[in-house]
C-alpha cells in the first residue's frame, strides 16, 4: 500500500486529524485488524472497501470506541482516543452510523435528531426535575434539528414515528442524527447499501455537500460506482490489512483488486 507518514500529516501531505497507529484486534485468534496504520486529513471523503470479513466494520468499531484494540492507538488531532468510551468519542467529534439501521422507531423523527444533540441541560437530572433553562434549550435544539432534517429532506416527516419511514429515509435520518452531534468526522457504515438508486444518489449528493462544508467522511461501501462517484481516496482491506490505497480510478482498475474484490 501507499506509504503513510504519521505524526501530524497524512500521506498526501495535508494535516491529519484522525490517525490510527498499528491497530490490531483479534477474535478467538483470528486477526480482524492486523497492524493498521492510517492518517486522514481534516476534510474529504474516503471509502473503505473489501470483502465481507475484511475488518472494515471492526475498524470503525475500534475507532469509535465500541471495541478496544488489542494493540495500537487512535488519535484525534493530538488527543488519544484509544481507551475512551464511545460516548466520549462522539463528544470529541467523531460520529458514526451502523450497518444495521439503529434508530428509535417509536419516537418521532424530530426527537431522534434532538436526542443526538450534545451537552443538553435537560439531560441532567436536577435540570429535568427543576426545568431550569430546559424549555429554551429544547426550542433551540428543535430548531437545529429541523434545519438538519431540512438538509436531508425529511422536514416534512419530522413528526412521523421514525419506524414509519422507508429504509432509504431511515438512512437519511441516521445521517441527520450524526450531523446533530456537530461532529466534524462522520464514519458511515454502508450509507447507500440496499436503498433505491435515486435515494442512493441523494445520499451521495449530501455527502459531497458535507465534504464541501469541511467534514471528514469515511464510509464503508460495497457499491463501487458509489465509491467512484464521491470518494477522493479508496482504501482496500482484506484479512485485517490495508492491501491498496489511492485514488479510486487507479485502485479500482488494478487487475488484482478487480479480480479479488469486484469480480
Amino acid at each position, binding site marked *: 500500500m501507499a506509504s503513510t507518514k504519521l505524526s501530524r500529516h497524512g500521506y498526501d501531505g495535508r494535516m491529519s486529524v484522525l490517525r490510527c497507529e498499528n491497530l490490531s484486534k483479534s477474535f478467538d485468534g483470528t486477526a480482524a485488524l492486523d497492524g493498521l496504520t492510517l492518517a486522514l486529513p481534516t476534510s474529504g471523503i474516503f471509502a473503505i472497501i473489501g470483502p465481507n470479513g475484511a475488518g472494515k466494520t471492526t475498524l470503525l468499531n475500534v475507532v469509535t470506541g*465500541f471495541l478496544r484494540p488489542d494493540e495500537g492507538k487512535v488519535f484525534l488531532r493530538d488527543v488519544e482516543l484509544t481507551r475512551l468510551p464511545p460516548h466520549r468519542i462522539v463528544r470529541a467529534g467523531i460520529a458514526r452510523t451502523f450497518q444495521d439501521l439503529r434508530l428509535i422507531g*417509536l419516537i418521532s423523527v424530530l426527537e431522534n435528531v434532538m436526542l443526538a444533540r450534545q451537552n443538553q441541560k435537560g439531560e441532567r437530572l436536577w435540570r*429535568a426535575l427543576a426545568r431550569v433553562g430546559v424549555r429554551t434549550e429544547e426550542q433551540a435544539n428543535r430548531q437545529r434539528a429541523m434545519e438538519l432534517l431540512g438538509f436531508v429532506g425529511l422536514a416534512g416527516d419530522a413528526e412521523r414515528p421514525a419506524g414509519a419511514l422507508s429504509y432509504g429515509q431511515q438512512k437519511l435520518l441516521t445521517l441527520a442524527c450524526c450531523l446533530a452531534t456537530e461532529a466534524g468526522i462522520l464514519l458511515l457504515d454502508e450509507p447507500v447499501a440496499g436503498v433505491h438508486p435515486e435515494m442512493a444518489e441523494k445520499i451521495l449528493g449530501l455527502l459531497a455537500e458535507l465534504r464541501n462544508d469541511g467534514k471528514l467522511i469515511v464510509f464503508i461501501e460495497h457499491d463501487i460506482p458509489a465509491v467512484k462517484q464521491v470518494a477522493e481516496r479508496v482504501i482496500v482491506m482484506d484479512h485485517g490489512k490495508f492491501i491498496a490505497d489511492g485514488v479510486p480510478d487507479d485502485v479500482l482498475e488494478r487487475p488484482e483488486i478487480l479480480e479479488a474484490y469486484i469480480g
Partner: protein
Amino acid sequence: MDYFLHILILCFIYFIAVYAVDLLAGRSGLLSIANAAFYGIGAYTSALLAVHWGWPFLLTAPASMIVAAMASLMVSLPSLRLKGDYFVIATFAFQMILFSIFNNWMDLTRGPLGVPGIPQPNIFGWKVSSNLEFSILAGGFAVFAYTVVGLIVTSPFGRVLHAIREDEVFATGCGKSTLRYKVIAFAISSALAAMAGALYAHYITYIDPTSFTVMESILVLSMVIIGGAGSMWGPLVGAVVLVTLPEALRFVGLPAAAAANLRQIIYGALLVVMMMARPQGLVGRYAIGR
C-alpha cells in the same frame, strides 16, 4: 368507610412502588426484581430511625430514600454492565441477600420477630392516625411520585432513558453515557420504592421480612405488566386491579384458604392472558422485555 380508606391507602402505596418499577422496567428497559428489597430498605430505615432515635416521619422518609438510593449503587454499578437475563439474575441475587439481612440481622432488624411499635407519622404537630388522614398523606406522596416520574419522562433525560430502552447502542452512538443514566434511573427507582416502604411501615406500624420477599417484587412487577408499562396511567390501573382483586374475592364467600389459592391462580391466569392478548398491558405503551 374505614375499610375502603384502607384499600385506598394500599393503592396509593402501591402506586408509588409501581411508578418506581415502571421508571426502571417500563421506561428504561431494565427488568429488576429487587424492588421489594428497596421497599424493605425504606421500611426498615424509616422504622428503625423512628423507633430507636425518635426521628419524625418527614426526616425518616427522605433518609430512607437516600439510604435506598445509596444501596442501589451497590447493585447498579457492578451489574448494569450486564445485559438482559444476566441483569435480572443479578437483581434477584440482591433481593435474596437483602431478604437474608432483614431475616437474620437480629441486632438490627430483630429478624422474623419484626419491628413493632412504629409510630404513626406526626407532621408539624399533625398526628396522622386515622385512615382518612393517612389516605391524604399517602395520596400526597403518590402525587409526588407521579410528578417526579412525569417530569423525568417528559424531559430530555427521559428521552435518553427511552433511547436506552429501545436501542442502547444507538443511544451510545448519540454520545450518551448510558451507564450513567441507568445508574441514576436505578437510584431514583430505589428511592421511590423506599418511600413506599416508609409509608407502609408507618401505616401498618409493624414490619417483618415476610413483607419484602421476592413475591412482593413479582406482585409489583405484575401490576406494571397488567396496567401497562411506559404510561402514566398504567401503574395506577395495575395497582388498583391487583389491590382490589383479592378484596373482591372476599365477597365471593369462599373459605379463606381457597380464596388465597384462587387469588394466585387468577394472578397467574391474568398474567398469561395479558402476555398473550395484550402484552403492553391494559393502558400501557410497551411490552416489558420486548
